[in-house]
């Protein structure tokens, strides 16, 4: 019986490790379209935009926020850095907003390349990219409005 419980515990720990969300990044850039009339956003403004508390950019345009894939470690790392919360808390938070009809979460796309393509084409878009991509923003039609370094 004891070994049976040990097996169950081991299986749960294995499953637990498989679903961990933990990959860290050096930091993130908040990016908008290069033509957007925004030069800087505060961290609080970014939190508001990515958590549905604000739906409009400071320019008055309806914000179009884009996200990394739901199950990606990049997304988990970004929200942890932005809000200090576990991604499960963020998902539960968005479930509250989404299914109450209050707000829609940022649209998840496949990867960073797709984010770049979208933000470069949508003037009211806002998204995040790894810090390492800072150098290529300008030539891809994007600009950074906030830099968040890993803590």
């Amino acid at each position, binding site marked *: 019986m004891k070994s049976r419980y040990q097996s169950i515990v081991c299986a749960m720990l294995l499953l637990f490790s498989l679903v961990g969300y933990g990959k860290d990044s050096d930091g993130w850039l908040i990016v908008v379209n290069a033509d957007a009339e925004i030069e800087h956003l505060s961290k609080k403004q970014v939190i508001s935009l990515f958590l549905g508390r604000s739906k409009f950019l400071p320019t008055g345009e309806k914000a179009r926020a884009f996200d990394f894939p739901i199950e990606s470690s990049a997304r988990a790392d970004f929200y942890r850095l932005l809000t200090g919360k576990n991604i499960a808390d963020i*998902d539960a938070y968005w*479930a509250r907003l989404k299914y109450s009809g209050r707000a829609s979460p940022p649209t998840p796309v496949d990867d960073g390349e797709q984010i770049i393509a979208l933000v470069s084409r949508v*003037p009211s878009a806002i998204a995040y990219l790894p810090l390492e991509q800072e150098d290529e923003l300008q030539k891809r039609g994007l600009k950074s409005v906030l830099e968040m370094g890993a803590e």
Partner: protein
Amino acid sequence: MLNAVYAVRHSFFSSFTWVFALVVFPFFSKAEPSTSLPTSNAIEVNEPQSTAVLTQNEQSYLPQNWRVHGFGTVGYADTGKYDNSILRRNVYQNTEEIKKHGYKLDSRIGLQATGELSPRWSWVLQGVLKHQFINDVTDYIDVAMLRYQPNDEWQISVGRQPFDLFFLSDHRNVGYSYDWVRPPTEFYGVIPYDYFDGAKFVHRWGDFDNAWTLSFSIGFIEDSYEIISFGEHSARNRDASDNDDEIGSQDNNEDNSRRPDFDDVVRAEPIYNTELTWRVGRWHLRANYAYLDYEQELDSGEIDDTLGEVDDVWPGLNDFFEEFSLKDELHYYALGASWEHEGWAVRSEISHADAGGLNFSGQRGYLHVRKRWQNWSPFITLGYANDSASISYQRLEQTDITMDSSLYPSLSRIQRNLDAITSAVKQNQRNVSLGVRWDFSHHKALKFQCDLIHTDPHSGSIHTIVMRNFTRSSTRKWCSATLDWVF
């Protein structure tokens, strides 16, 4: 035995809303510049874009801006564990059905479609399939609203939408969104109003660290629910009834066929609700006041027959049912506070309901504490409900009817049942819930929860099957588990 079902009957809600949604609003979308996102083979995202990139996709704006989401819960609890008590989520649930089928207690599935007609006009349609009293198909629709939001400060929505009486008012069907297997039944189980049909105005101001929201709602509510269970529903046995003057019995072994059926009709119109929320730092505070002008009519041939027969000798009986089933006002006050920091979450809500009649009155509250460790979130919740409302009427002992009268045995049974009804609608209970939530995968969570519920004597609560020794206090323990997900 007595079975009383309080039903607030649904009617097809505001046809105006449907007409507005299906006919008028598409024109609004064309009145404003469309902001459809161009699609390509490489990138297909159903998001609007600015007019600068609007091209041939304009005509396909609407379909591109539809989104369909869903949520579900599969759960089980040993609801039939006790003969005289039942674990119920709320008064929408039929006691006998839940007692027989434990999986019906928390299981449900919901679908939501949302769309943008323009950057400032949007709509939401949500249906939830679950075990509940149903009068027509619109009972399954929880949200069907249109919203206009010109900016972050102002918003107006019309149609069917959540009735903001609690923290969880607008998402209590979405199990994935909260820690519990089910929200505290003391607080969330008795007030049966999930949604209303009408208009809601919202104004927001302040900044990130000091954000205020004030909303005002006006409309009406129609719904179906059971607030008292006297055991097995009598409807199936009505034809067998042979004793019209009996509306119940104290005898536990009473023949079920004698139970009459009570259909209660309540329509709340108008309803007003105002809610103030304040986000400051790690705190989220809320206060609301709601006023409901509701009409509740007992629809029971048995009662009418009985009242007609004894009205001359016992006028107090008529007074009782007039008190019990009158047009009345409900004033509802609630305060809530939530605090979160580094995985800790503390939440509490208290409410006071002041109804002129017997239903809904009392004070209720809970305190919830949870701590997240990675994907595990154990929690403890303490709940409390107190209801001291009573009806003043002439009791049988205060009439001229003596024990020698041939009517006395029947009327005596009726008196006992009036006492039962009076107690049954009261909710005096305390609750301790221990549980854990495990976010084992993205958008999926397993939850396990045990509830220890103490019910005071002569208190129906939503867990007591009245007429089955409910005059004594009881302490019951139920454990339940759910799998919650969103998609």
